[in-house]
């Protein structure tokens, strides 16, 4: 009779873009042919509420069945029966306009399924949505003069961390109910947000974020570092608010902010409901569908799914839990049926206390934790996931240790990896070894994820509460056979073995897009695809860094080479060794600010005769630039040229070294230029800021603008985090032999990474010493005349 009762009714639904809401909309459209829906949807940043409904709800595969049945008529049918109103449950008055209020007033039933379901929501966010949401719906109904029946979806876990029976009664009626007022909690949460925001802006914290940004990006230039620091501040505020939520919830006896705000939300609803009749439906852990709209249907990657997949990937070696405890899982279609039943049933009498219906499996058809773990282990042993090399992953056996122990282990692992990462990033690594850092970061992320799961969900595996379903079963007993068939919500219908192994796990694996077939992938690799995009005819500009991108050398070496060229043998070695010995301190300066480093270093050329240096610089081509070149890099420059791209070298190296020697390789060269005195000697001072850091990005932007080229179609090649501004400025960044920091950034952002090396047959002199000629060196001459050589 449910369909008949709801025929011709209008139902106001919140949370329709969520897991439960989508299933609910689908079931109402399909199984209650004559009802109409008013969906409250928050407009997205770029899309309207109506667009979101089309894209995020109606295109979901939940509607395949209905679409198949209606064929062409699907769009007409949904347009006719669905009205979309823009609004937001976290705003007072739901953010409705007049039209929205009218739509709300026209409804006979309101179903509130919107929630911030993440267990690690920031405290204030959870409070606004979960705690105040239901009360706001009730107030909105009152404000439009409606006494429509409000069905509010809550959760069984409002019962808190308790052992034993948890019946279908108000939280305030239980003996363990904490005596807190929800209004005070709301106030406190909002105040906390303001405090944390204020604290995040205090100088010590701002300094900390700036330091962390520098540690991650290196000498990337002021704008990038500032953006990064601000991101870190935001993240810190969010983390602090999450922690605040968790702490408050635990202090009051709930496992997390979700259950805590949901519980207070029920109280708030009852306090403000006035004449609005209310039914509260409390599901336990909602998982994939048993049968409707199809077995295994699921939306989003929710609670158990990431844990299961992480386990199947072999990354969760242990997980807490009480083996004989009950994991209270309930398929989504059973919850939907119970909600629809509640909507159809209506309140017996508005003045009655609100009805509470729990939809849970634990009391009638319990699934024990050990049994679940065995089923999952068995299934993944038979149907393993595969690693990147196409080898099956062996899943671990859990020994059910306490949560504290698992947590401590994981915390230790994360800390150890953190330390290793710090050590690695302090080393001047490049190329493949720099990948270690990216790998390590992946491990750290995996361990951190495992830790989060244990912290978040461990409590749910350790719950010892048994949720009563007497009301649910009472309602079931009044249903006729047709409704029992069409809107089944009896927990006993679940065959756990079949559900877990034939319905849920296959669906989870499919949704997770993990490798579930053996063998290595065929077709072009990711690198090949990225490379093809970089070498596409659509690009039109390719910018290259020089040092460690095209050659394995640096300004110190070329200086040493030039300076030693005309020295007597003993002095040659001494000067070269001195230059090398200064390496670490120069490197430190270089890391801090490349521009400063170059300015400081180029002072050494002060007093060097122009003609002599120019003559010697030509020899550098063979002895340094070519000998230490990455042939693949030079080839890449030429490939770009062949494709008709403009090629430009943007380097902090000196004009006298790069312009004549590498001129024919590029269309243009942007480099550092040194002043010349009237006597034909170098001044050691640069004519303009060297193109490094942001100046390099600026130089490239200027170049592109002057040449009428667009940076979105440009490619940039660089090797270090200090080149980030340049890499970020273009549409196609390429990290060449990246050092640790850039390697992990490139890895995260999916940039093309090239590993170019020197030709293995090349000469490898121990010291950067120019071959002898018989004239005096400027470094030697300079010492006498200017006292400038250091």
């Amino acid at each position: 009779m449910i369909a008949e009762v709801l025929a011709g009714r209008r139902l106001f639904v919140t949370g329709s873009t969520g897991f439960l809401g989508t299933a609910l909309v689908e079931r109402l459209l399909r199984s209650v042919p004559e009802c109409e829906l008013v969906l409250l949807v928050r407009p997205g940043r770029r899309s309207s509420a109506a667009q979101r409904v089309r894209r995020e709800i109606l295109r979901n595969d939940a509607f395949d069945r209905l679409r198949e049945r209606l064929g062409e008529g699907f769009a007409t049918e949904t347009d006719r029966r669905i009205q979309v109103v823009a609004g937001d449950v976290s705003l007072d008055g739901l953010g409705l306009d007049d039209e929205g209020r009218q739509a709300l007033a026209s409804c006979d039933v309101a179903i509130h399924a919107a929630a911030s379901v993440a267990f690690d929501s920031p405290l204030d966010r959870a409070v606004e949505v979960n705690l105040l949401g239901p009360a706001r719906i009730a107030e909105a109904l009152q404000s439009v003069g409606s006494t429509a029946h409000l069905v509010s979806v809550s959760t069984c876990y409002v019962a808190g961390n308790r052992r034993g029976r948890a019946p279908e009664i108000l939280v305030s009626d239980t003996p363990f109910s904490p005596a807190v007022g929800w209004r005070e909690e709301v106030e406190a949460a909002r105040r906390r947000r303001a405090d944390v925001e204020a604290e995040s802006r205090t100088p010590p914290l701002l300094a900390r974020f700036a330091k962390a940004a520098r540690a991650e990006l290196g000498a990337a230039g002021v704008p990038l570092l500032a953006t990064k620091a601000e991101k870190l501040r935001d993240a810190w505020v969010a983390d602090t608010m999450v922690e605040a939520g968790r702490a408050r919830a635990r202090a009051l006896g709930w496992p997390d902010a979700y259950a805590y705000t949901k519980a207070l939300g029920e109280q708030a609803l009852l306090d403000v409901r006035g004449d609005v009749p209310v039914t509260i439906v409390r599901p336990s852990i909602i998982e994939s569908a048993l049968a409707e709209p199809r077995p295994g249907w699921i939306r989003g990657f929710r609670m158990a799914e990431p844990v299961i997949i992480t386990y199947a990937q072999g990354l969760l070696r242990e997980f807490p839990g009480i083996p004989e405890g009950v994991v209270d899982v309930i398929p989504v279609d059973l919850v939907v049926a119970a909600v629809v039943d509640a909507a159809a049933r209506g309140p017996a009498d508005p003045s009655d206390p609100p009805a509470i219906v729990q939809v849970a499996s634990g009391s009638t058809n319990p699934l024990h934790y050990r049994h679940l773990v065995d089923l999952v282990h068995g299934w993944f042993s038979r149907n393993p996931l595969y690693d990147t090399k196409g080898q099956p992953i062996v899943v671990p056996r859990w020994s059910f240790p306490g949560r504290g122990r698992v947590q401590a282990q994981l915390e230790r692992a994360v800390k150890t990896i953190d330390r290793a990462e710090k050590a690695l990033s302090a080393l001047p690594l490049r190329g493949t070894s720099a990948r270690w850092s990216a790998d390590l970061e992946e491990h750290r992320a995996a361990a951190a994820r495992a830790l989060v799961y244990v912290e978040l969900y461990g409590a749910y595996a350790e719950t010892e509460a048994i949720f009563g379903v007497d009301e649910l079963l009472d309602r079931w007993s009044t249903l006729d056979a047709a409704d029992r068939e069409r809107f089944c919500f009896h927990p006993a219908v679940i065959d756990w073995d079949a559900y877990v192994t034939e319905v849920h796990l296959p669906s989870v694996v499919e949704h997770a897009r993990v490798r579930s077939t053996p063998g290595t992938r065929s077709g072009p690799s990711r690198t090949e695809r990225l490379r093809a995009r970089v070498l596409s005819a659509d690009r039109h500009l390719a910018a290259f860094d020089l040092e460690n991108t095209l050659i394995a050398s640096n300004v110190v070496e070329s200086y040493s080479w030039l300076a030693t060229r005309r020295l007597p043998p003993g002095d040659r070695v001494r000067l070269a060794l001195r230059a090398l010995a200064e390496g670490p301190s120069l490197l430190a300066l270089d890391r801090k600010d490349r521009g400063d480093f170059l300015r400081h270093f180029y002072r050494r050329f002060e007093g060097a005769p122009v003609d002599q240096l120019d003559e010697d610089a030509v020899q550098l081509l063979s002895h340094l630039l070519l000998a230490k070149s990455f042939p693949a890099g030079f080839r890449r420059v030429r490939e770009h040229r062949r494709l008709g791209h403009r090629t430009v070298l943007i380097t902090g190296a000196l004009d006298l070294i790069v312009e004549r020697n590498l001129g024919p390789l590029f269309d243009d060269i942007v480099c550092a230029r040194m002043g010349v005195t009237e006597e034909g000697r170098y001044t050691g001072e640069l004519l303009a800021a060297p193109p490094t850091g942001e100046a390099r990005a600026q130089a490239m932007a200027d170049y592109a603008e002057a040449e009428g080229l667009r940076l979105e179609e440009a490619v940039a090649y660089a090797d270090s985090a200090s080149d980030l501004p340049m890499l970020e400025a273009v549409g196609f960044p390429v990290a060449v032999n990246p050092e640790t920091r850039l390697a992990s950034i490139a890895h995260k952002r999916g940039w093309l990474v090239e590993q170019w090396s020197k030709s293995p047959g090349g000469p490898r002199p121990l010291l950067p010493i120019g071959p002898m000629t018989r004239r005096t060196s400027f470094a030697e001459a300079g010492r006498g005349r200017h006292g400038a050589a250091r």
Partner: protein
Amino acid sequence: MSPRPGFVMEVDRSTPPTLFMHGEGFRLQSLPVGSRIVYPPEALPTVADIDGAIRSALVDPVDSEPLSALLFPGMRLTIAFDDVSLPLPPMRRPDVRQRVIEAVLDLAAAAGVDDVHLIAALALHRRMTEAELRHAVGDRVYDAFAPRGQLYNFDAEDPDALTFVGETDQGEEVEISKRAAESDLLVYVNINLVAMDGGHKSTATGLASYRSLRHHHNVRTLQRSRSFMDQHRSELHSSNWRMGKVLRDAGVKIFQIETTLNNDTFPPPFDFLQKREWEWSARDRATFVASSKALDRAPNRVRRSVFHAVRAPHDLTGVAAGDVEAVHRLTTARVYDQQLVAVEGQTDVLTLGLPYICPYNVNSVMNPILVMSTALGYFFNLYRGRPLVREGGVLIVSHPTPWEFHPVHHPSYIDFFEQVLSETTDPLEVEKTYEQAYAEDEWYRHLYRTSYAYHGVHPFYMWYWGAHALQHLGAVIVVGGDTRAVRRLGFKPASTLRDALEMASDTVGRDPSITHFHAPPLMMADVT
């Protein structure tokens, strides 16, 4: 005791294992009973009074007036000399070029000639470094001429330094060094290590530009040069001789000085490498064991520096001066004297042990392309009459073939290997699709002119050098080479000689005739 001639030995049960050169190392291999080994002749005696012989050649040249009669005050004299690619290995000081050049300069000074230029005739080879020039011409000549800009490397890409002389009757353009063409006399100082060198090829190739070279350095010509070591059956030489005629008709006066060396290739302690295995002394055996053990353990870099430090003891067996063609006839006869070995009949399988050096990797790396050109270009072509291996036969080469290139000397080789050979190894296809782009590439041109790089087109010539062999052979197998590099060359890799012979049976059947060409020292098979 006069030196023993080369000979062909048949392997029987008592034959000791045979030495194979293997890049920067060597291996002892047991050849199947019944195989033949071709041994080179022993080193011919050298000229006792070298400077005297040179002087008398200049005083009493063939088909020419004495050099002193050709010199006069105020004239423009150019002395061109062979570059670093000759001889192999580089010879001990003083280099024979230095002796000849000093003798010529003495005469020039006596005749009051001031305007003298010395040019390293390197065509499209890399420029010689200061040290290499000093080694070739001696410090005295270097210090007298180089600082004044009168001793330099030929630059085939300097439009101002080239002159177009004319065309042959077959339309081949002749463009050579302007200084050489416009001199009153061009004296060419050559080292004739193999029969291919010298004659008109000295000037028409050594001082020519790409515009000129492409007429004979191409697949068609080289496939018709059988072999290019036998000038009478070599299209390469015919073309050079036609160009020589154009030069002569244009009035370019050339006084050719050609020298021949004996095949005394390795100094002690490596001299056992040129002895016949059964004549090794206990000391030779000990040296072999010790050096091969040490070399096996040493990194490539160290092995390379050991071998490239070798300065060969070979010395002058003869010198001739005067008219190009007349001189070259004498020279060729002397080369044959030292190198020819009579071999009866062709073979199904030819085995080679490739040394560490070829003309294009002096002080450098023998990269995979040079391995191909040394085996299929040089060694395969060291025949007169018929190739040593029959048509459709198998060539087995022993060489480590590392995927290594000298970044300064061979930049275009690296790109050729990565870009061209990864697409095709067919010489005609390579020539048609890729040659022009490499030959006219600005970057390679820049490197050739200002650094020490072979010209952009040079790796193509190396590939064409082997074109005749590629056409002739049924299969090429490389023993002990880098598998990926060998496959890139289009050859088959084998880990041992035994495996290689097994693989060869797919092409030549179960019971093939096998011949091992026991070089170096260099020789030439006279196959009947």
